[in-house]
């Protein structure tokens, strides 16, 4: 296959590959130029040339790759798509992190490396308060929803039929299905109509409401995978219901519960829309605070806090993966 395609020496194809890469990159720049100079003659001409360069360059490049590696067109496109998408997913994040170290106060011009914005952040009282509320809400909502969600999952998985099971099952799925903005406004209306002042407690209530569902879904999946005969074996060996739960069900379920809890915690930390609607003055969470900072104007401080939040999410993810692997 490879030899059939390769009719010249590899060095030749490497040269073609390099040249076509050059063409494509140049072409992309040319297209950009055309966009900037849209409507002017030189813009139009550059654009047309650049388009040709990109097309011709990629065609030749792919031919060269085919000759060198024997990958078919389809497979090359698959690779290309994957690499470009991963780049696309990460470029903004990387830029954000990099710019959080930029000394310049305004604009994107690089004026030097600094940790100044992190320093500013750590001395920002409002951020500190928001952080505290976020963690408080995250902790309690995780705790409550993990317990409640796990119990509900147990009921639904271990009791295949009881009155009202179907409606309960449906209601448990609803918070995942309906858009968060709808949940946000309905919860806000509820609190206002019943006369509950908005505070961190109202945030907590709303967060628990959607977290229960996610925990239940995660734990249920784990329970469904679990071998029910293990519980029967425990009972057979003299363990009553409680001890069966304590010594068999709970330990085996633990990875699922932990995964559910971490998911709940992340969702709670990340939630913006619902919190935005049900948080009162003086009880905002970090995302809501960041949002208002963004609305007030993009400052380097926001870059810094975003980078920190990013790191937080990544470490939570790694933690959850590590715990699940055990």
């Amino acid at each position, binding site marked *: 296959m490879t030899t059939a395609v390769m009719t010249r020496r590899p060095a030749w194809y490497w040269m073609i590959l390099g040249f076509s890469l050059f063409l494509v990159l140049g072409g992309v720049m040319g297209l950009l130029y055309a966009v900037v100079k849209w409507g002017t003659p030189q813009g139009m001409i550059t654009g047309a040339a650049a388009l040709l360069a990109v097309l011709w360059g990629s065609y030749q490049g792919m031919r060269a790759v085919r000759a060198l590696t024997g990958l078919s067109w389809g497979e090359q496109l698959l690779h290309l798509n994957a690499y470009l998408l991963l780049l696309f997913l990460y470029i903004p994040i990387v830029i954000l992190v990099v710019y959080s170290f930029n000394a310049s106060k305004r604009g994107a011009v690089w004026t030097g490396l600094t940790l100044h914005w992190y320093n500013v952040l750590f001395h920002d009282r409002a951020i500190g308060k928001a952080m505290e509320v976020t963690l408080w809400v995250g902790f309690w909502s995780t705790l409550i929803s993990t317990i409640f969600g796990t119990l509900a999952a147990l009921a639904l998985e271990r009791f295949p039929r009881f009155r009202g099971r179907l409606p309960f099952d449906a209601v448990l799925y609803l918070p995942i299905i309906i858009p968060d903005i709808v949940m946000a406004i309905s919860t806000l209306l509820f609190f206002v109509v019943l006369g509950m002042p908005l505070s961190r407690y109202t945030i907590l209530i709303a967060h628990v409401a959607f977290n229960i569902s996610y925990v239940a879904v995660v734990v249920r999946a784990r329970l469904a995978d679990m071998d029910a*005969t*293990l519980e*029967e074996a425990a*009972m057979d*060996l003299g363990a009553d219901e409680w001890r069966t739960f304590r*010594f*068999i069900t709970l330990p*085996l379920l633990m990875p699922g519960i932990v995964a559910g809890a971490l998911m709940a915690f992340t969702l709670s930390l990340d939630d913006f829309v619902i919190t935005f609607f049900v948080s009162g003055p003086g009880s905002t969470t970090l995302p809501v605070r960041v949002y208002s900072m963004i609305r007030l104007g993009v400052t380097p401080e926001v870059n810094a806090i975003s980078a920190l939040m990013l790191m937080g999410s990544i470490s939570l993810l790694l933690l959850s993966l590590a715990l699940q692997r055990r």
Partner: protein
Amino acid sequence: MTYAVELIDVVKEFPPGEKGKAKGVVAVDHVTLRIRDGEFFSLLGPSGCGKTTTLRLIAGFETPTEGVIRIHGRDMTGIPPYRRPVNTVFQNYALFPHMTVFENVAFGLRMSGLPKKEIAQRVEEALAMVQLSGMEHRKPRQLSGGQQQRVALARALVNRPEVLLLDEPLGALDLKLRKAMQLELKSLQQRVGITFVYVTHDQEEALTMSDRIAVMNEGKVLQVGTPVEIYEQPANRFVADFIGETNFVTAPLAALEGNLGLIRIGDRQILRGAVVDEGLQPGTEVTLAIRPEKISLLAEPRDGAIPVVVRNVVYVGNDTRYEVELDSGIRLFVREQNVHRADIRRFTAGQHAWIWWPPENARILVQ
């Protein structure tokens, strides 16, 4: 006499809707079993006949729809599994994956609140009994299938149950290990003297190991008896068919001679067999059942022998199977042991021969 386990007219019906079934399933249908103390009792039957369900009823995982279950005379109605004097070896072993071998075996003793020292000692004994000493600290997934099976056995036996329930405990093992474990299980049972209720769909396993066997089909118990009784005197066609290989010839009963019955096929040939059911009238449709190895294939005619043509010869190691055709077109299987080398292929396809059997070797069963 009190029995180790008694099932009296037990019915288990699963309600419709479960397991995607629209109609309810009667998994156990008016079953009455009396299992004696210290007995190795097997439940044998095809897949889905209700063996596991019967076992689960005894263990207490299912509650009977009707009927009574007693263990050593005590009514088990309403008694949860953890308060029944039985232990189970599950088909998939159900070893706790998050516990070591030691912890698995110790689980039952811990639940009954024994002191630590005694637990350690008894677990050690149990593991020694199943030849697993030194594996205490492994997790179940670090064990081979056979070893896991033995852990499951030790875990159940260490509690010294009055009755041990085993649900196809050897199902997942390869043939050789299976044979070895069969012998081991049997000798173990004789040593500890505990009543075993053993579920299997492997007839050979049941025949070699059991003191008595109950053959089940579609939730019903068709026959209970010793292996010899089940094999030699099957009570009905299903049992005869399910256990070993059997030739069946269906025809009206021609005449009765004492406890022998005669059936006529074609216009001249008469087959004889022992009549099982009393009060059978000539003229009723019956089935004659005769095992292939009980038929002698003769080169020369003799009194009462039936002429046949050999149609097929298959050499199967320690014996040879012949398929012979009677004049009336009925085909029967005959099996001969290859005792001497000269026995092999005594007949070839197309050859004329005669078959004969002592009449009491065949059984005449009602349809």
